């Protein structure tokens, strides 16, 4: 099996993949990147927290025009996980992109987005309808 790596470091490729965020220990604001201080409260003490895989589609756009290297169309999505974290990703697994509906229930899934010249496979995450 080829070496796999996540598309971003906040995707944890466990047996059951999930997202993980830095969480402010004072106000519980979550960040997918590192922060010197919390953008919400200014606190400087952070822990790591697992994000729920269940989410609701709160906004989307069906992208038909993108850079030449990006396959179109795809459904760009903003989802809200059931534990209150907004995530940007794609809605995957729809027969027709126009089947995307605001408020639909989704769950995190992963898929391969290619293998590089050294044989490493990159794993992305998306959200599919429940």
């Amino acid at each position, binding site marked *: 099996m080829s070496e796999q*790596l*996540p*598309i*971003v*470091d*906040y995707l944890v490729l466990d047996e059951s993949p999930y997202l993980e965020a830095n969480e402010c220990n004072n106000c519980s*604001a*979550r*960040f*997918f*990147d*590192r922060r010197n201080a919390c*953008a*919400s409260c200014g606190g400087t003490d952070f822990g790591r927290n697992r994000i729920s895989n269940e989410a609701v589609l*709160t*906004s*989307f*756009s*069906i*992208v*038909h*025009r*993108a*850079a*030449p*290297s*990006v*396959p*179109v169309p*795809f459904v*760009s*999505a*903003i989802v*809200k996980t059931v534990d*209150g*974290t*907004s*995530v*940007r*990703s*794609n809605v995957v697994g729809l027969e027709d*992109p126009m089947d995307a509906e*605001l*408020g639909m229930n989704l769950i995190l899934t992963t898929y391969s*987005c*290619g293998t*590089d*010249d*050294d044989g*490493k496979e*990159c794993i*992305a*995450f*998306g959200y599919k309808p429940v």
Partner: protein
Amino acid sequence: MSGDSIWIIGASMTKFARYEDQDAVDLASTASLEAMTDAGVSIHDMDVLAAGTLFQASTSMGQRIQKQIGQTGIPAYNVSNACATGATAIRTVYLSIKAGEADMGIAIGVEQMGKMGLLSGATKSERNVFEPSGRYGAAMGVDGFLGTETMPGVFAQAGMQYAYENDGVGFEQFARVAYKNHKHSTLNPLAQYQKEFSMEEVMGAPVQSYPNTLLMCCPTGDGAAAVILVSEEKLRSLPTETQKRAVKISASVLTSDPYVESGQVQPDVNTLTRNAASQAYEMAGVGPEDLDLVELHDCFATAELIHYDNLGLCEPGGAGDFIDSGKPFRDGSMPVNVSGGLISKGHPIGATGVANVFEVTTHLRGEAGDRQIEGAKVGLAHVIGLGSSCGIHILEKAS
């Protein structure tokens, strides 16, 4: 006139277009000289200059303009603040006058984008190697895999979020915004495009990022605009005709985006606009009901619709009904983007925030020709730059 208000005495903009025979310095210099001529003053009257450009931000644009219009040794501030660049240039001069360091100054916005295509989005490297890098440890470009990074898509999502939270908003309402602005542009000779399209044509145009079709997206282009600002004391020393045509800056506000939970994945263009609007209305002592026209940041049709609500032009949650009612059309009760807006007038980024102040100023002076909103006394100019930054100026006709 009373107090320590700051006034606009000169305003100009080039036609927005794609110029192959002029560069950004030429365009900025043309707008600057015309604004000074409009004000009846010269470069020797200027105490400060602020020049805004985004894509040439590191090129000392202000000093390059000075070499075309007069090197008098005054402070030159080069500013860059995404799509709020022009408004930031105005505010830089405004603050210099407020601080007592200047009596008169010129704010210039300029951009040369040509046929630039999509802004932001993926780039492709020569070798295909996955290597974690950047603040998110991204192994590869994520555009297209983790949502979109392109502007039509980001602003489509801003509009769809509003549709999720409010009733009466859908593809047709967003399309009607573009229909309106293209219709308005036919009266503005300075607009990049002056062509009316039917609703069917707007909705049937190639989809860029649903719900934004091609005719619901602003074009890239070239252009410049400039305004001359003076202190009230200085204004009183100028000819009567200059004083009569002067337009008061009743509010000048710049905000950045405060923390919201979703901000790290989707730029929040709402909260900073709402904050800027409430500050501006309080500063000017007016409310949305007092406005005779509004030039707001319609980079995409989805953006204009949500700003009806953010600026308090409609009932909370009522932006869909607002556009359906016809109120923001030029013959409606709250004309919005009678210039044609960014969608038709064009959006040379650094110029935009000055150009919308030019537009409102021209109407308040009663000099807008065929597109004049009759009897306009108060107007609002709004821009937003992703990052994010929001600039609002409320202008009033001299009484």
